[in-house]
């Protein structure tokens, strides 16, 4: 594995990031817009409903964490799609860059971008709604963030693999998949309110355990560490499977000449 090739891919996308409005909106604009909308909505609820002392905190925390997960997954897929849209995929994969280096470069790039997204959400959350992400989650914050990133990477790699298999026609999946997983991730409500069939799906998602415990942390309820361990274990399994799936689909695309046609 060559750090110079990984760096090449990271810097190649960082060149574009600050000067492309779409990418900037993805990292800052849309997350800030969503937190603003939800914040206003929840402020209204707080003023008008009784027994809703922590509802703003819980919802804001959920929105921030969901944004981190959604942006991670979308950004991962878009880095790949960007090479396809630019007809640059052949240039990239005819260079000495390996599959592993490509995936690591995406992870590094995504981590850099998501740090800026988190910082912007923390600042807006604090100045608009007095929501302090660090003190709200305390020492659990790094663990929660790591798990969100792990899940985002798994879903992102899965989407890339599906695009490698089915081509352009499934590129919408890059944006649609997190909307599909949101109801089962139980971002704004506990797993217990789901119907039993949906509960079975939710229990397979690392995000449902994370959001469950995140609400417990924000509401100062006792924390079930088992849920955090299950979430981490599921994430590791899904990440390994998604990398394997990406690798298998990449090789299939090479065998059938689809990698070239995708360009």
């Amino acid at each position: 594995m060559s750090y110079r090739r990984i760096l090449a891919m990271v810097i190649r996308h960082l060149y574009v990031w600050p000067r492309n409005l779409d990418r900037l909106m993805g990292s800052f604009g849309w997350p800030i817009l969503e937190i603003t909308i939800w914040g206003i909505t929840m402020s209204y609820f707080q003023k008008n409903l009784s027994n809703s002392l922590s509802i703003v905190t819980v919802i804001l925390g959920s929105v921030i964490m969901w944004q981190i997960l959604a942006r991670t997954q979308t950004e991962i897929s878009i880095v790949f799609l960007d090479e396809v849209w630019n007809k640059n995929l052949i240039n990239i994969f005819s260079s000495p860059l390996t599959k592993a280096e490509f995936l690591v470069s995406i992870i590094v790039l995504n981590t850099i971008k998501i740090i800026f997204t988190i910082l912007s959400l923390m600042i807006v959350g604090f100045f608009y709604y007095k929501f302090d992400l660090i003190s709200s989650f305390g020492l659990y914050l790094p663990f929660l963030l790591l798990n969100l990133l792990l899940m985002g990477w798994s879903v992102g790699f899965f989407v890339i693999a599906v695009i490698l298999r089915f081509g352009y026609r499934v590129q919408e999946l890059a944006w649609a998949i997190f909307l599909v997983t949101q109801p089962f991730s139980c971002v704004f409500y506990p797993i217990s309110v789901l119907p039993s069939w949906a509960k079975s799906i939710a229990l397979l998602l690392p995000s449902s355990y994370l959001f469950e415990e995140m609400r417990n942390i924000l509401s100062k309820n006792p924390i079930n560490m088992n849920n955090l361990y299950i979430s981490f274990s599921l994430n590791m399994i899904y990440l390994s499977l998604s990398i394997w799936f990406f690798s298998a689909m990449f090789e299939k695309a090479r065998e059938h000449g689809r990698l070239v046609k995708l360009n």
Partner: protein
Amino acid sequence: MGLLGPNGAGKTTTIDMLLGLTTPTSGNINMFGLPFEINRANILKRMNFSAAYINLPWSLKVIENLYTFARLYEVDDYKEKVDKLMDEFQLTNLKDKRADELSSGQLAKLYICKSFVNNPKLLLLDEPTAFLDPDVADIIRKIILKRVKKTNMSILFTSHNMPEITEICDRVIFLNHGKIIAEDTPDELAQKIKFCKVRLLFLVENNKVKTLLDNYKYEYIIDNKETTISLDERNVGQLLGRLSLAKLKYTQITIDKPTLEDFFIKVAREKL
């Protein structure tokens, strides 16, 4: 080395396989004496590629594109080397322009410049001058030839422009349906076609000419005043003698020797 063949012959597929973009259905690829599948990165570091049908990221500046690929190929002192290349390709004054601000000619130069960024031992060029006007195509060819002389690199070159292949390539492989049909120098391949074309401008009526050519069963085309006769070049003297005996006077005569294009057309049609 030129890679020739009709559409669908397998030229681009061959290049894709050599770059590891497509897996061969059977057999193995060895390059620089190494098996490709287990030495992919090592082999690709010594190669580069450009084609008419690929782009570089539009939103990156010229210099950013070249830096990106220099890093991908792990070029040492890449900034210095990219600066020299940009000078050579007359891209220095465009270095801060984004790729989407360049003209087709400037883009073609950038793509070729990118393919030289790691000073490759083997360069694969798939129709690099397709879609370019003759002037820009000529500039690109001259740049390629200059670099080849300077660095002694090998080039695998595909094109449908036969004079271009003749100008650039020392040897040619002719492919059809994924199989090698012929391999030789461009001149030797052209000489495999025994027929030449004799073009004549007659002073007499076309009917008289037509009668004579029909009598001797020549293959010909009459286009207004010009008559083009295809025949074995050894029989040109005999043709001229027959015309003289029949008192068919002409004011102009041109003899076209067979070209690589004639070979291409003949072989492509035979093998269809």
